[in-house]
């Protein structure tokens, strides 16, 4: 039997059934010690786990605002430094908070070089407010603010490369995973926490309403993202791509396998799918998958 008291995120949160993010969070929690402080940006995770007066968190946890999880963590780290405490500091935020509204503040935190792990649960849209497009929304995705229609193929912007932005700050540990690979996530969190300085982990987290998938499809979505080369499992240690991790679980499946299970890509033409295939091919070549 599961000892729920030992879980850092208790059952009883009110996220969607089958939520990719919540399952990724559990994989993260398995890697954390009790001597950890968590910071959440505004988003699904905060809303679904802390409906006052209840809380699903067994670790010290704070939510301040949408965009400021990074400087809140800096302040916590400074307070711990002053007290000479080695407590780990971990941020959990969505892609809206990370790619868009909080980006400048994340840059400021990375400049300060504090030992803080920043985890971005990437649903590729503002899931919590009803699936509006973010800087992470992929090209061609149908969202409520990039709707597909007679004169629109969905999002005309390409997904911003957050990993490169993290690497440009000289982070010692930068990695990418998806919620379908729990052990990969747990290992990466452990490695990130064992690496001195700031670190960044981005986890693709399939979102039921956002991706328009069924409650049993988060795992499939997360797996296909990796297997098609669109979202490879990556790990950069001291800026160098760790070759041992990249070929993992790649199957060279056509991107249509991944796109066709999701409502947000249903409108795409064959030509448009080809363009997304080109993005995957570029990844396959670049990362030598």
């Amino acid at each position: 039997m599961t000892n729920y008291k030992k879980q850092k995120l208790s059952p009883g949160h009110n996220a969607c059934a089958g939520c990719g993010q919540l399952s990724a969070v559990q994989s993260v929690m398995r890697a954390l010690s009790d001597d950890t402080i968590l910071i959440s940006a505004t988003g699904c995770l905060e809303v679904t786990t802390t409906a006052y007066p209840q809380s699903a968190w067994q670790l010290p946890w704070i939510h301040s605002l949408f965009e400021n999880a990074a400087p809140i963590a800096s302040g916590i780290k400074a307070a711990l430094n002053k007290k000479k405490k080695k407590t780990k500091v971990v941020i959990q935020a969505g892609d809206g908070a990370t790619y868009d509204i909080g980006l400048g503040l994340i840059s400021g935190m990375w400049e300060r070089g504090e030992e803080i792990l920043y985890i971005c649960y990437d649903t590729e849209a503002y899931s919590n407010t009803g699936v509006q497009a973010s800087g992470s929304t992929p090209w061609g995705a149908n969202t409520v603010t990039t709707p597909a229609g007679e004169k629109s193929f969905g999002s005309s912007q390409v997904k911003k490369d957050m990993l490169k932005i993290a690497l440009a700050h000289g982070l010692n540990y930068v990695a990418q995973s998806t919620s379908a690979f729990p052990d990969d996530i747990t290992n990466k969190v452990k490695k990130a926490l064992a690496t001195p300085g700031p670190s960044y982990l981005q986890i693709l987290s399939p979102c039921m309403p956002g991706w328009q998938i069924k409650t049993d499809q988060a795992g499939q979505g997360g797996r296909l993202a990796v297997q098609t080369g669109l979202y490879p499992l990556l790990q950069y240690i001291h800026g160098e791509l760790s070759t041992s991790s990249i070929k993992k679980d790649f199957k060279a499946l056509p991107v249509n396998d991944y796109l066709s299970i999701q409502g947000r890509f249903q409108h795409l033409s064959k030509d448009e799918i080809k363009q997304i295939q080109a993005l995957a091919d570029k990844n396959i070549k670049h990362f030598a998958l």
Partner: protein
Amino acid sequence: MFTHHKTQFLEGARAVSLTIANIQPAVVSAYPITPQTHIVEDLAKFKAQGRATYEYLRAESEFAAASIVVGASAAGSRVYSATSSQGLILMLEVLYNASGLRLPVVMTVANRAVGGPINIWNDHSDAMAMRDAGWMMFFAENHQEAVDLHVIAYKLAEEFNIPAAVNIDGFILTHSFENVVIPDKTSIKKYLPTYKPALGTYLNPQKPVTLGAFFTPEHFWLEKKRIDEDLKHVLTIFPKNYQTWKKILPTPAPIKVSCDDGLTEYCGPKNPDTLLIAMGSVVGTIKEALKTDKNTGILKIRSYRPFPVNSLQKAVGNCKRVAVIEKAMSSGAYGPLYSDVSAALPGFKGVSSNHIVGLGGRDINIKTIKNIIKSAQRAQIKFW
């Protein structure tokens, strides 16, 4: 370490920074903006010289600075920041959050106009932008008050878990030199003990808490009501706290004070015909202007939030005219202080007037004040 309670001739910013150093916050973070800069430069220097041990974090914006001190405060540390004008506006979202999280953040606001048009000089339009954020807001008339109010701000903030802003007029106080007494660490500690929040009230793995939870309508209004009640409770304990502090650090008043309950201070005749009401350094000019006036008094609002309704009503008594002199305007309505004063005097039968002065650093001299007193015969709102 820094002083032994002797009178020193100091710049206002230096008086504040020396006081903060002796209050010994654990974490300091700020972003430079004129006219706050001298304070945070001093604090960085004290740290670099090894004269202070706080963590000093460089922030890439005021928004970040405010968030950093909120984070450090949530982790159970005494914190400090300072800002002005545009910086305060940029912080605003975080400032609401600090009070909602019940964190005893203390901040100096070196008051400056808010653009556009851009202007770097003094008025109170920045402070008024945070009026409803759930912070205590104190206004200093001079350097000594700036010093005293910072110590008192920490005391009240940490006792009530309410953040506090100490407003000091930009340039007029921050960059001018006056005689001032800086309290040493020992006397501050007598009044303001080392900050040790109870386990279970801040982020500590030994006793995990959830801070900043999601509040539904049934809980949200109660929390807001509680903050309001606690702020109003400060009104009842401020006078005694103020007296206690002034016993530890007695300093002579430059001009004879008739009545001082901490929240407000009154100078003038027992039953004035005209009562002037103002905040901050302009009160010094007003006192000078009233030296030969036997019929007019000045009520200084030291605590703007919480607003000292009872002290105000008592001071107004049966006077014939009330003239509110203030350095901010709620465009399309009245000055914010005038609105507060009017709401606090529902039965006032005399003539009340509102005088908007000193916007963007516009000079206010003794003649201006004398003309205001003359024009207080008429109910009006007037820019000077």
